[in-house]
Every structure is written in structure tokens, then in C-alpha cells.
């Protein structure tokens, strides 16, 4: 396992991240999803060693922060929704200043990615837009040959074209089977295509943690007449939504679901799962 979280608990004022466990093997992408305030950024900060958990352990590539912080940092690339670099320096100068802390940092690799992402290496960091700053963070994270990429909601700031490029790069990143990605995002459409694992948080608790196929197989989206939906056993129903064109319900996948040809049963997308689970 590249990343292992065991029973992580973190209290911050009135908010509490409770008993979060997760395992991510090498060569996979984990999508960290949840509504605003669910605790996604808090959990990422725990994974990055910026917060000390009140309970539980974080293991990155078999190492703990207490004993191997430097080695973990060498292997971790980060993209956060913050201005982390020096605004007065050019992108290349920023890369040189902070890249020298990493043994495997390559200025040439940074230049390659900057060109690929449409960024000019000689422009100052502060002159970039928010999306461009995130692109630079992404390029820097790739330039020091990280094993684990941790990305906190970058996709909302990318245009559609770059989002495609972004996911292409992520797939290239994990292609050799030795690296992994943790991607926190609201935009779940893309996760349906690229994520292998999902960790779904709500109010600081884990609603689901596991591979995406198991998640999909655990639920079904049922559409039909209200009386048909009511016929489904209550304990299977997560949430019902009545609309103009019929009634939809998210239900647990079970053999006990009625065998009714007029009922439409579909595998829910991650977005639909999030929507219904949040609404329950």
C-alpha cells in the first residue's frame, strides 16, 4: 500500500474528523469527495503531515511522519488552493528556489511541463491567474519525481480543455504502476472515468471507502411511479426524490428489489450518489 490511514481522528474546534480509514495501493487514483465542510481539506492536511491527528496513524509508502518525514516529503507532490510560491520570482526561479530541497528535482522537467501547460517560465508567479498558479503547482509537483500526488480541488479552476490534459497527465503519472494520486474534487464527472478508489466524507465521517466498482455495485438508481418506489423495502431506500417526470430513488443494491419491468434501474454516477446521500 502506498497510503494507509487507520482510524484517523482529528478535532478542530467544533469540527471533528472521525475514525477515517483508507488504503490506496500503488498505481491507482483515489477520489476524495464530499460536500462543503465534509472534512476533505482537513484530511488532506493530515495526510500531508500538516496536522497531527488526535488518534490513528498515517503511513506513506510504509513510513510514518514521526520517523521518516524527509523521505515522505521527497516522495510527495502537492497542489493546494493556496498561494505557496514567491510572487516576485519567475516560475523558473521559484522552481530553483524550492526544487533544490528535493533530490530528484529537474528544472528541465519543470520547463517541459510549463510548456505543455501553456505557461511562460519567465513570467512572475504573482502575474498568473488562479488557474495558472495551480498549473504551476502541478508542474512543480511533477518535476521532482513524486510517488504520491495530493491535489486539493484543482479542477474547478481549470478550463475544460486543460481539465482533459490534466487527467491525461494523471493517467500518465500512474501508468508505471508505482505511483498514486489522491484527488479531492467537487467535479465528480471526471472521477467516474479516472478514479479507482473513492473516499466519501460527510460531516467528518466516512460514508464510503473502497474501490469504485464496489461503490457502484452497492447502490442502484431507481426511476418509476411513486407507488412503485413505495413498494421497495424501506430499509433499502436511501432517499427518494419526486420530480415532474417521475420519482427517483437511490437504493441499496439487493435481490429484494422488486422485479418490475416498468422500473428503470441504473448504476448511479458518483454525482448522483453524492446528491442522494447528502439529501437523505
Amino acid at each position, binding site marked *: 500500500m502506498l497510503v494507509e490511514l487507520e482510524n484517523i481522528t482529528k478535532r*478542530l*474546534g467544533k*469540527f471533528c474528523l472521525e475514525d477515517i480509514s483508507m488504503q490506496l495501493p500503488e498505481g491507482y487514483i483515489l477520489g476524495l469527495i464530499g460536500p462543503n465542510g465534509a472534512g476533505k481539506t482537513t484530511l488532506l*492536511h493530515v495526510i*500531508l*503531515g*500538516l*496536522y497531527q491527528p488526535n488518534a490513528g496513524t498515517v503511513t506513506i509508502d510504509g513510513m510514518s511522519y514521526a520517523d521518516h*518525514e*524527509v*523521505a515522505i*516529503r*521527497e516522495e*510527495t507532490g*502537492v497542489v*493546494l488552493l*493556496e*498561494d*505557496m*510560491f*514567491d*510572487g*516576485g*520570482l519567475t516560475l523558473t526561479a521559484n522552481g530553483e*528556489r*524550492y526544487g533544490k*530541497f*528535493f*533530490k530528484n528535482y529537474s528544472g528541465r522537467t519543470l520547463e517541459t511541463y510549463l510548456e505543455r501547460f501553456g505557461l511562460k517560465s519567465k513570467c512572475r508567479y*504573482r502575474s498568473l491567474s488562479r488557474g495558472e498558479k495551480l498549473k504551476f503547482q502541478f508542474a512543480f509537483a511533477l518535476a521532482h519525481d513524486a510517488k504520491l500526488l495530493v491535489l486539493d480541488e484543482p479542477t474547478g479552476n481549470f478550463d475544460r480543455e486543460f481539465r482533459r490534459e490534466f487527467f491525461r497527465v494523471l493517467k500518465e503519472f500512474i501508468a508505471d504502476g508505482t505511483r498514486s494520486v489522491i484527488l479531492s474534487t467537487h467535479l465528480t464527472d471526471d472521477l467516474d472515468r479516472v478514479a479507482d478508489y473513492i473516499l466519501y466524507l460527510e460531516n467528518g465521517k466516512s460514508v464510503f471507502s473502497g474501490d469504485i466498482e464496489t461503490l457502484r455495485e452497492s447502490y442502484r438508481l431507481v426511476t418509476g411511479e411513486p407507488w412503485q418506489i413505495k413498494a421497495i423495502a424501506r430499509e433499502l431506500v436511501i432517499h427518494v426524490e419526486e420530480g415532474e417526470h417521475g420519482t427517483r430513488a437511490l437504493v441499496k443494491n439487493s435481490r429484494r428489489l422488486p422485479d418490475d419491468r416498468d422500473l428503470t434501474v441504473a448504476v448511479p454516477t458518483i454525482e448522483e450518489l453524492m446528491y442522494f446521500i447528502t439529501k437523505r
Partner: protein
Amino acid sequence: MLRLIVRQYVSGLRESGADKRQMGLNAFWIAYAFFVLPAPYKFYDTGTGAGIYLALAIPMAWCTLESVFCPIRMPKILFLCPMDAQMRQTYIRGTYRFKVVLHTLLGIVGAIVSMAFGNDWLGTLGAACNMLLYSLFGVGVDAAASNQGGEDLDISRWGRIAVRVIGCVLIIILQLIYVSAAVEGGILAQARWEQVLIGCLTALALLFAARYVGYWKTMQEEALFAIREEKL
């Protein structure tokens, strides 16, 4: 490490992370120091008085302002770079020493300038030492702590803040005395009782400074946190 410290200092000045409320408060007191405080003493009535006052006040004002917009704090990016705890402590310690030396040097320059306006050697030395003491208080590790939500500070920090505030006030009073004495020809030109008073105030300021430096270990640990959890 020194190169990193200097670069981060320059970056910090450029990319001010100042809390607006604290900045406003400090700006108010600095404006007060330059425009209101000298009035009863009539420092601006003569060129000599104005020269001495500005020479000794400007370094203090700079130290005060800079502690707010450039406090000692590990930038988040350095937490995400492969630096171990020892390196971070070296960085924080080095930054503190760098700032104390920088502000003391500014104070020495100011004191030497005051000598050109008629201050004696004892007054010049006293003003320079005063600036050293002020920089120990004012360099801003504690500003990093107090910037993150004063209402959440715990009682142990109130003690530290009290020592800092009282110490700073003492030093400012001392500096005013040095200015007054310098305008009249220096400390050696003052009456014996005034010289004793200056000596006693200096000793008191030294005690407060020593007490404040005793908090250094705690302040250093706080400055090492990537994120101040009390902010939430």
C-alpha cells in the same frame, strides 16, 4: 541557510501577510509616535531636536511595522519541502537572530546619526542598546501567534503578551529620555538623579527582556506549526 533566510525575508516584505486590524493598530501608534508624541517635548522646534528624534524613532517604527507584516513564521511551502524538524528549528532560530541583528544595526546607525546632532557617547550607546532590547521584543514571533485570533489566546499567552507590552513601553519611555537628554547635550550633561533614573529603567527593561527571551522556546515551537489550529 542564511541565504534562504534572507531570501524569505525579502519575499516576506514583498508578500505581506499582515493582519489588517493589527496593521491598522500599529500604523496608528506609529503615526502617534511621529506626530503627537514629540509635541509636548517640542522636539520638532529645532533641527537638532528633530534630527535626533527621527534618528532614534525611525528604527523603532520600522521594527514595529515589520513585526506585523513580516512576522517570523515557516511558510507553508517549506513545510511541504523535505526539511526535518532540526532544519526548521535552525531556520526559525536563524530568522530571529537575523532580524535582531538587522534591527540592532539600524538602531546603531540611528544612534550614530544622533551623535552627529550632538548626542554624547553614553547616550549613543544607550540608544543603540535600547534598540537591541526593543528588537528582542518586537521582532515578531509573538505577532505570528497573536495574529491568529486574539480571542482564542489562552491564559499562558496573556502573560507573555503582558511582558512584551510592558517591556516595549519601558523601552519607548527610555528612548524618549535618551532623545530628551541628547537634545540637551547627552546623558553626561544630565543631573545625577536623572542618570540614576535612566540606569534603573534600563535595568528594569533588561529584566523584562530576559523574561521575554525565556519564552523563546515556546514561541519557536509555535512558529514551527504549519497551521495554527486555534484559528479555527
